[in-house]
């Protein structure tokens, strides 16, 4: 079929940030999938609360302090995370390195505190259904902390190589976007794991 040119797109940029970037939409898609997984696991938790006459089942409520400290750390991390996003959008390599470094430290701290959280649950996964679903909720979120930490570390190293150009800043921005999801998904889980056993 014959063709006739109607527009020249030579001057378009080759990468963009936020909703301009297909990768941002892909990240949003993964957030939807994982968010649905969280919602269903949380729904299962509430279902089990509903079918059991007492909750928690033959175990004391978990020690909430490690979880509370982690929650405060995650809420605090929103600030350096927003700074990292802004530095990436400004394509300021020096600032991006600094911010990724800070976010990596926060990620390591978060994973370490998560270990204390497991220790403070006062129940094992194979003890009863309460123990099972509590470990699953905490473990599910732990995989997200670890995944984002891994991603942040790889990006941090990348920013010290010759690849630290153009599109990679957009990747840093998308990683910051994903961290918002990791923090946002934690808040309802925190309430479920630590406060429902006290209130139920």
């Amino acid at each position, binding site marked *: *079929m*014959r*063709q*006739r*040119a*109607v*527009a*020249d*797109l*030579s*001057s*378009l*940029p*080759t*990468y*963009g*940030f936020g*909703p*301009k*970037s*297909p990768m941002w*939409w*892909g990240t949003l*898609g*993964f957030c*939807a*999938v*994982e968010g*649905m*997984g969280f919602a*269903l*696991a949380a729904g*299962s938790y509430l*279902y*089990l609360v509903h*079918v*059991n006459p007492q909750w928690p*089942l033959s175990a004391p409520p978990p020690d909430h302090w490690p979880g509370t400290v982690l929650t405060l750390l995650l809420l605090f991390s929103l600030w350096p995370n927003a700074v990292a996003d802004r530095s990436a*959008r400004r*394509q300021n390599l020096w600032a991006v390195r600094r911010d990724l470094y800070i976010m990596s430290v926060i990620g390591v701290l978060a994973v370490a505190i998560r270990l204390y959280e497991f220790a403070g649950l006062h129940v094992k*996964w*194979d*003890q*009863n*259904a*309460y*123990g*099972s*679903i509590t*470990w*699953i909720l905490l473990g599910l979120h732990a995989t997200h902390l670890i995944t984002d930490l*891994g991603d942040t570390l*790889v990006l941090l190293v*990348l920013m010290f190589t*010759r*690849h630290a*150009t*153009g*599109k*990679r800043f957009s990747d840093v921005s998308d990683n910051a976007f994903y961290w918002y999801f990791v923090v946002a998904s934690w808040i309802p889980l925190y309430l479920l794991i630590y406060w429902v056993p006290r209130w139920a």
Partner: protein
Amino acid sequence: MSATAATNEASDLRDTALDGPELRVRLSKTWGTESGLWGALTTVDHKIIGRRYLITTFVFLFLAGLAAVAMRLQLAQPESKLIGPDLYNQLFTMHGTTMMFLFGVPVGEAFAVYLVPLMVGTRNIAFPRLNAFSYWVFLFGGLFLWISFFLNIGPDVGWFAYVPLSGPEFSPGKRADTWAQMITFTEVAGLAVAIEIVVTVLKQRAPGMTLDRIPLFVWAVFINSLVIIFALPAVVVASSFLIMDRLIGTHLFNPAEGGDALLFQHLFWFFGHPEVYIIFLPATGMVSAIVVTFARRQAFGYLALVLSLIAVAFLSFGLWVHHMFTTGLPQLGYAFFTASSMLIAVPNGLQIFCWIATLWDGRPDFKTPLLFVLGFFFIFVAGGLSGVLLASVPLDTQVHDTYFVVAHFHYVLIGGAVFPILGAIYYWFPKFTGRMLSERLGRWHFWLAFVGFNVAFFAMHISGLMGMPRRVYTYTAEMNWGALNLVSTIGALMLAASFALFLFNILRSMRVGAIAGDNPWGAGTLEWATASPPPPHNFDRIPFVTSREPLWAERDSLPVVTGLRVDNRELIASTVTEARAELREPSPEPSIWPFLAAIATGITFVASIFSPWAVVWGGALVAITLIGWFWPKGSKEDEG
């Protein structure tokens, strides 16, 4: 702030500087796949991967079909000794599991992987390496299931693997674990493709393809992908909970320790009912494409068709409990789920009226693809009618777990999905291969399949009403089910013969079929604007879309845009609603890493059946392959 095109180098060759054969040759080189094993393992071309997906899903269709034939032979007469109860349990589980997870869900995605980039006028799917990864994971999951079956550790707990039957107490051994991990494989693959399709449709449409110019097939698979994104996590949660109960001693489904068996059913059917529509929605898109082309007019009620798709997608999440009417639920639950089960018939009916109106007002050309669509109307409507009956709790309670239900869901699944899919193969085969399927064999195929299907499954309504339960390996002569079962077996053999004919037609036509040309049906959508089969880069220049059927609106010459690079993979990222060109987005080069990541994933999934620690070391293995995947290599990946 975005970078501009100021980073141009000496080698920055644009398609504005070239034309004709030279442009095509250069683009083919840039976007091509290496020949040989290395090329096969590293390719990221959506057409090659889509073709593999299609062939693989059809191989699974044939395997599951053979399992069905074996079961029908066993049931042809009372107290047959052909197949024992243990093998029979495995056969019906393999049949259902394969049809649902290795054919029904992935075949719609397979068509989408091949066709969506062509239909929206782009050069590759979004995230092409993820696409390659998803195919390998899907293949490994399917092989895992069938190799397990041949090693006598195939699952035997039914395709929905209810606890407590599938739990640690009643299913020792590895058979139920095989089922649960097969779910993990296929769902990882399915979710990956769904995200690719969503992003391709939202961000890679050719300039000018506004929302109301998106082809109906693309709308269907786009909405389907959204259903997948929100439904599949439920079955992943269900099967993960199951495998944890079995392997590491959790008690989620164990009532003795505060768990609940019905929780599994809720999780499974929260996925399982949308799954019916995950199988059906792409088929409606195929019907729309075929009806429009062969009616030779635009779709009647385009907006109504799109809104119906959206309505079906939403309502499909509100029906799951109608699979659980006999589990003893609160009265209000019955009322709600009966009402919603009946409600979904409305948008489905609306679609059927729109298609009939399109045909009514057009000049229908009754080629084989359209025959299969007409067969779909007949069978699917019949299945819908028995579905409305089953939405009523008293009737459902009476025929629960009988052959009436088996008849019903085969009418909706084979009628609603397999017939349109077969029509779609006849319709798009010329685009896939460059050759036409034989029309004469196609008609034979259709009539044999149509008659065989109805003989096989209509009789099951009656045997079900006579009380024959599903999933029994035999029955006594005194039940008087023998004659009806013999009829069903004869029908099943006819249906199987129709598939043999179909296979023969495909193999023969690939060698000696008539040459198709770019647009053998005179269709209007963009996949027909390029060669058959399409070149690696799909389009020499990206089309500029001015109408819903661009090839009908622009009969003399196709408007196109220029300015993309020729020596590097580049496509257009556009805005979500108006499809204004926004970026010259680089598209990934071939890579071995998705294949390696899929192998690492496969090892992790299979090993975790034997040791929970496999999740830990396997996770590290997967992480290494993912870093290899994402680490930029070569200068091409740094440009832009």
